[in-house]
């Protein structure tokens, strides 16, 4: 493992620790980690078309989130993984020439996902403490409440 991967693993562990009361957050961290490990192993094995395979694995996680997400913060994760798939498609089609630029773009998506998961968990804990001392709904508490709202549209499998 190189430094970037170790940093990402530490970030994922911190986000998972912060989300220990939120099993959905931990589930998405595990799904993202599984995708990362699979694609990294594929690249390490030296097999071709790494960008396409990465795109398909991220698309799989993206669709898992789409079908099973219940809250708005999870739909943010869905958008982040969509961006990750798009980056892989750009790399596969040659629009992103530099391997370094591709890796950096994917790392940005990974860290954004961890920030959403960890940030939501932190926000909820702060909100719970504020509820004790400041019951009135300020801007921060309204923002946290928005993240916890149900997603705006259900997956197409649940549309009557």
């Amino acid at each position, binding site marked *: 493992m190189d430094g970037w991967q170790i940093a990402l693993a530490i970030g994922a562990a911190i986000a998972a620790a912060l989300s220990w009361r939120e099993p959905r957050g931990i589930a998405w961290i595990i799904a993202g980690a599984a995708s990362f490990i699979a694609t990294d192993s594929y690249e390490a094995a030296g097999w071709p078309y790494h960008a396409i395979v990465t795109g*398909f694995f991220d*698309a799989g996680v*993206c*669709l898992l989130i*789409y079908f099973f997400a219940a809250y708005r913060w999870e739909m943010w994760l869905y958008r982040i993984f969509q961006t990750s*798939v798009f980056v892989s498609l750009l790399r596969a089609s040659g629009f992103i020439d530099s391997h370094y630029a591709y890796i950096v773009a994917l790392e940005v998506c990974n860290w954004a996902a961890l920030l959403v998961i960890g940030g939501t968990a932190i926000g909820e804990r702060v909100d719970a403490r504020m509820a004790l001392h400041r019951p009135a709904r300020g801007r921060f508490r309204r923002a946290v409440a928005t993240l916890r709202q149900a997603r705006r549209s259900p997956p*197409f*499998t649940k*549309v009557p």
Partner: protein
Amino acid sequence: MDPVGALISKLLGALGGAFLALVFIPPQGWREFLSRGSGSIVAGIIFAPVVKSYLGWATDVESMMAAGAIAAFAAWPVMGIMTALARSRERKAREADPPGE
């Protein structure tokens, strides 16, 4: 390339393209999913050789799969646009000539 191999390559590519298109443009119901999915896969199979010749690719398995994927991926939103246009025309026709009058 033998015809069966070409068809399988195109089909696999079209399935991959439709799968990726599903990520970016989720349908709004089962009916739309089935119509977009089937149309996308069929378009991928039919237009894969067109895409391949337009891009100047060789006739091998990978190029055929990639061409099928591109054709299917592009067909998904096009089908949505055509459906929206058809519904808009139907609505305008119904407003211009309401039933029962």
